């Protein structure tokens, strides 16, 4: 009887011709997670991955649960395709379920068998019966409850052997990183943008994070805050880099030469220009933001259209329709909420005028930025970007 980790990946197996590419991306990510486990061996089967030689590593389980594309991870037992061995494994699985769940004497279970090896002599209902009777007669005090069991003993009979498991950790689902191309995420340090990044990564986008830093208006601590948020997000994509653009010069130029009420709009347009240039360099296909409809004055459809005007690439807003409460809940789950609530100011809080325009008109905004040496400022900003890789 071998102990291993069983990984389920759902949606990828439906993706037809791209399947190999998607599986390749997933395998690469998992190998990266496994780099600290030199003994581990990865085995691929249809719709399943197995990791050998890492028994009972709870930390590894939770790290795998953060790999986009993985639907669930389960510690499992593998035996030969032999009924008596399967019965033994089922009893062992029941014992583990009892210890890990800390279940009391009243615990119940149910057997669920799947047979992808059609040559196996027992059909699924018969195998369920075998598993059930083995566990019931093992003296563990368990009873069967098919409707609301304390745990389920799952048995999968496959060509390479039979896999028995009793619990599983839910993964984040979605698609493997890179399977949807590359994007830039504007990462501010607020609550929203890390959540937008998470959602884009969940759908397989390989992200490059771009942060605009306004020293001396804000300090090292506000940069460190973004670095800490980025490190949390790297659990979902270990290759994600953080690009820090020094933005003060652009903001100062805006404050000197643009009418106050257009400041924020022009600033966002400048951010898009910088993001676009970075995207060209990195071959990214879209710009992601944490923007949300109507949340603040600048996030109206009119504003978004005027800001997008300078992006040259699709600007995608995963949180567009989210309520604040929904975003906060997700941020808490991801683990960025507390970091985002650290009180260091970001550049926007200093920069925002009393009455920003909420429904800007494109021609008036273009007029407002006519004295701004746009190309020069953008080139200098992009040239000064510092990139963190670890």
């Amino acid at each position: 009887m071998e102990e291993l980790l069983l990984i389920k990946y759902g949606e990828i197996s439906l993706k037809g011709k791209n399947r190999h590419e998607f599986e390749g991306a997933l395998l690469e990510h998992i190998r990266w997670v496994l780099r600290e486990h030199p003994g581990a061996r990865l085995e691929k089967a249809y719709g399943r991955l197995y990791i050998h030689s890492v028994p009972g590593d709870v930390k590894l389980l939770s790290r795998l649960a953060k790999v986009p594309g993985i639907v669930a991870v389960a510690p499992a037992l593998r035996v030969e395709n032999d009924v008596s061995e399967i019965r033994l494994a089922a009893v062992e699985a029941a014992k583990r379920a009892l210890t890990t769940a800390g279940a009391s004497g009243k615990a119940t279970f149910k057997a669920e068998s799947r047979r992808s090896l059609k040559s196996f002599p027992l059909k699924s209902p018969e195998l369920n019966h075998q598993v059930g009777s083995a566990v019931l007669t093992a003296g563990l005090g368990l009873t069967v409850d098919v409707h609301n069991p304390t745990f389920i003993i799952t048995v999968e009979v496959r060509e390479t052997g039979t896999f028995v498991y009793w619990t599983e950790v839910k993964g984040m689902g979605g698609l493997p990183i890179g399977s949807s191309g590359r994007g830039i995420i504007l990462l501010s340090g607020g609550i929203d943008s890390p959540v937008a990044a998470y959602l884009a990564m969940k759908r397989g986008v390989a992200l490059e994070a771009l942060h605009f830093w306004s020293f001396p208006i804000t300090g090292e601590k506000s940069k460190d805050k973004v670095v800490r948020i980025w490190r949390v997000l790297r659990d979902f994509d270990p290759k994600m880099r953080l690009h820090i653009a020094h933005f003060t010069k652009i903001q100062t130029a805006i404050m000197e030469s643009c009418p106050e009420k257009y400041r924020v709009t022009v600033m966002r347009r400048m951010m898009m220009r910088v993001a676009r240039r970075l995207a060209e360099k990195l071959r990214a296909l879209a710009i992601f933001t944490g923007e949300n409809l109507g949340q603040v004055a600048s996030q109206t459809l009119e504003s978004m259209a005027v800001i997008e005007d300078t992006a040259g690439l699709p600007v995608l807003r995963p949180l567009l329709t989210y309520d604040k409460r929904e975003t906060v809940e997700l941020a808490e789950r991801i683990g960025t909420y507390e970091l985002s609530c650290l009180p260091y100011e970001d550049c926007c809080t200093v920069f925002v005028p009393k009455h920003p325009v909420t429904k800007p008109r494109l021609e008036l905004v273009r007029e407002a930025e006519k004295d701004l040496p746009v190309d020069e400022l953008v080139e200098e900003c992009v040239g000064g970007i510092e990139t963190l890789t670890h």
Partner: protein
Amino acid sequence: MQSSGVSYVARTAESANLVYLDNSSTTRPDPQVIRAVNTVLEHDFGNPSSLHRLGAKAERLLDESRERVAGMINAEPSEIYFTSGGTEANNWAIAGTAASFGKERHMVSTTVEHPSVISLLDHLHEEGWEITLVGVDGEGRVDPQDIMDAVTEETALVSVMFVQNEIGTIQDCREIGRRLLGLGPRRPRFHVDAVQGFARLPIDVKDWGVDLLSMSAHKIHGIKGAGALYIRKGVRLKPLVFGGGQESGLRSGTENMPGIVGFGEACRVWSEDREEVMSRLASFRKRLITGIKSAFPDAVLHGPLEEGVAPHICHFSFPGFKGESILHALEARNVFVSTGSACSSHKAKPSPVVMALGRSEAEALSSIRFSMSRNTTEEDIDRAIEAVAESLKELSAWRKK
């Protein structure tokens, strides 16, 4: 990331070039303190409670440090109790007094105290104590008569800080203490938070009639994690920390020997040349005020100009600018200061102390504290003035009209 590539040598060179004017947040340990601390760490590492000779050595070092601290305030060594720092000393003085009284009574303090006093008084208020916070004048000074007017028969404690940590105003603790003495044997206890004045200005607990006085090591070139509470002989204070009975059973826990020995050594260093250092700082303070006023005539000085202010603290507002932005612009020029009190500056809230002076929120948001130490030089002051001029120029586009 940021620091990984910086070698130790580069760091040393960098720190030699710093103009460090944030000494009311913390000071750089004195080289003699570092030597004393290292000796404790490397050789005299015994536990003062141990019976062998390493323990005996540690106990002798402990006694010696206690004498040195006591000598700074004209106390008996047996009246000095080591703590983890100023916050614990303040907490102990106030919460220990509260615990000694069994039922809720009354305490008097001021509106410009340190958060370690104010937030504890808030907590006691929630527990049912009546708290009176006496206001200050436009320079941060409390009128001793206002304190006396607030005292009732129910008053268990009067707590007044010696030197205000943000603006440097000196409270007349001697006058307050002597007036309280005049109330006779049933008078309230008198606690002085002396963290910002200790060692730099003369303190005489006997002459002032002080019952409890808080001190901290790292504000006087000692190291973090050590402080002390003076408890006048005869004052019964309930302990906050229970255990092995160290510090005469009043503050249990194995003594922080490196911190305490460093504290004693820092006291020794100060006792040698205090007056000379402080008169130097008083002239630097004048120089700084003149320089900043001429670089930026709109600058507003908080606290007294010369009389009744600690020479090492100097606090300005630069209306229209944001304090934090000035701080970072100065930092880029290797000049290190703080916005108001370092403990509250992360909150991006106007400094409550500047607000207590009756100033506007704009002033309380644009305030910068320069705080000097025995290491400060005239060149530091001139570089700071120049850096302020340059920084305000750099930030001029960001100034709110």
